């Protein structure tokens, strides 16, 4: 039994890392614009599918992954420029609906381009399981954990140590004031979408050797990442990471101890509970400001 628990935990943390990365993407765009980007899951899918296609075209895996990440970042940037920016001044809700439309568009595009097939990427470094206590861990899990840790550290440093990161935050705290200190809000938004798309793509590429990817793979991953972000308190990047890990572990425990059929239900039930008891998320800002 303890070995089994350890196994569930290992699986949960791996999956949770992916949710964390997707959640981080949500937090980035939310931080710049108060918008929840429902095309975030599609960035994840796009990263994986593009890598699959480039690999098929003969590129080595590392190069394919890098190019796919850059291309997805470009898609993010174009999405901002041609779908979000023309609606500048529209309400947040309208903008969110635009992102839903963009998600459908991206899914359709990939379907037309690469079909309905399911694809997997080869593991980055072999598939000999590593024994750890009573649990086994795939080498790919270590890649997931390692790269996630690195990306989380980078995003954390970006928001806390760089003026650019703080300028991005300033855009969402007070857009007028951000403009009045000379921040070009449009450029900041493009940056947020590009970074967030790149994060999503990397998450997709990391997880593709473990789970299959297809044109629809982004829907569930996007929802889980969104859940991670709201569990952690939307707009709090480190909260999204914690939320993702928590969600992954709960899901894995639930699937193992109760039934794998309830895996998603358990995750979403948890989100509902959190929202019910702690509407600003577990690590959300408790807003207390003097005016």
């Amino acid at each position, binding site marked *: 039994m303890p070995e089994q628990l350890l196994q569930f935990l290992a699986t949960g943390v791996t999956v949770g890392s992916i949710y964390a990365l997707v959640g981080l993407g949500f937090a980035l765009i939310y931080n710049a614009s108060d918008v929840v980007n429902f095309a975030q899951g599609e960035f994840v899918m796009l990263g994986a599918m593009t890598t699959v296609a480039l690999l098929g075209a003969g590129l080595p895996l590392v190069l394919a992954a890098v190019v796919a990440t850059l291309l997805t970042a470009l898609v993010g940037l174009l999405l901002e420029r041609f779908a979000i920016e023309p609606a500048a001044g529209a309400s947040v809700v309208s903008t969110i609906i635009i992102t839903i439309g963009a998600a459908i568009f991206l899914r359709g595009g990939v379907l037309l381009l690469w079909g309905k097939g399911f694809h997997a990427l080869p593991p980055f470094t072999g598939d000999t399981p590593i024994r750890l206590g009573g649990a086994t861990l795939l080498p790919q899990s270590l890649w997931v954990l390692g790269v996630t840790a690195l990306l989380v550290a980078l995003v954390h440093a970006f928001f806390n140590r760089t*003026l650019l990161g703080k300028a991005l*935050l*300033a855009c969402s705290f*007070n857009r007028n004031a951000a403009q*009045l*200190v*000379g*921040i070009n809000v449009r450029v900041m938004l493009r940056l947020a979408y590009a970074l967030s798309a790149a994060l999503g793509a990397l998450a997709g590429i990391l997880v593709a050797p473990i789970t299959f990817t297809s044109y629809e793979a982004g829907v569930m991953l996007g929802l889980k990442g969104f859940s991670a972000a709201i569990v952690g308190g939307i707009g709090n990047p480190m909260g999204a990471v914690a939320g993702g890990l928590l969600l992954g572990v709960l899901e894995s425990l639930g699937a193992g101890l109760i039934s794998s059929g309830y895996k998603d239900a358990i995750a979403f039930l948890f989100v509902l509970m959190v929202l019910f008891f702690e509407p600003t998320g577990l690590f959300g800002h408790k807003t207390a*400001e*003097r005016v």
Partner: protein
Amino acid sequence: MPSESPLLEQKEPLLEVAGLSSDYGPVRAIHQADLQVRSGELVAIVGGNGAGKTTLLHTLSGLHPAGGGYIRFAGRDVTRWPTHRIVAAGICQVPEGRQVFAPLSVEDNLRLGAYRIRDHGWVRRELEHVYTLFPILAERRRQRAGTLSGGQQQMLAIGRALLGRPRLLLLDEPSMGLAPLLVEEIFRVIVELNSQSVTILLVEQNARAALAIAHRGYILETGRIVKTAPAAELLADDAVRRAYLGY
């Protein structure tokens, strides 16, 4: 005490606004405003609630589009420029209601004020200058801006604008919601800044306090500039006294 408007012999004003209009949908908020600020001046625009003071400043900073007329700044037509370019050209605004970045620290707020400035030596020196101007901000540099009192937030908003290296500082109702002692403190700093050769355009509902420190004044009434004169003359004008000074 107010002195003579400096450098009246300057050929071209630093800021020249002519025939400026500004609309909110079908409603015209600013009608044909003419306005000049010369380098080194402290100019006040006074007017009651809803006279269009904030709209005028928003239009000058490019936050609100001009409906007609032009804005020339330092010899260039900036009427249709986006806000970040106007800031880079040297028009920095302290917005109404301070609008500090509440979740960020005091120091981060100030550093963001210098967002476009690459001269790090200058930024360091100006940061020290702001901390000497407002010692309380130095004490609280690590504190979140949202936890400051209203007066301290106003100081922070002024400091943030100063770090943008303003050639013209726009102040929107700096006295709003502050206790009289704090208003005095803020206005003392405005005079001090002006004496350090910062050109200032001050928009105020508190007409008496604003005209007491300004060289010249404009009276804004329902979107129109109805009177302009040296501030001392406006303070002594019977009609102005009745309408805006309440005595």
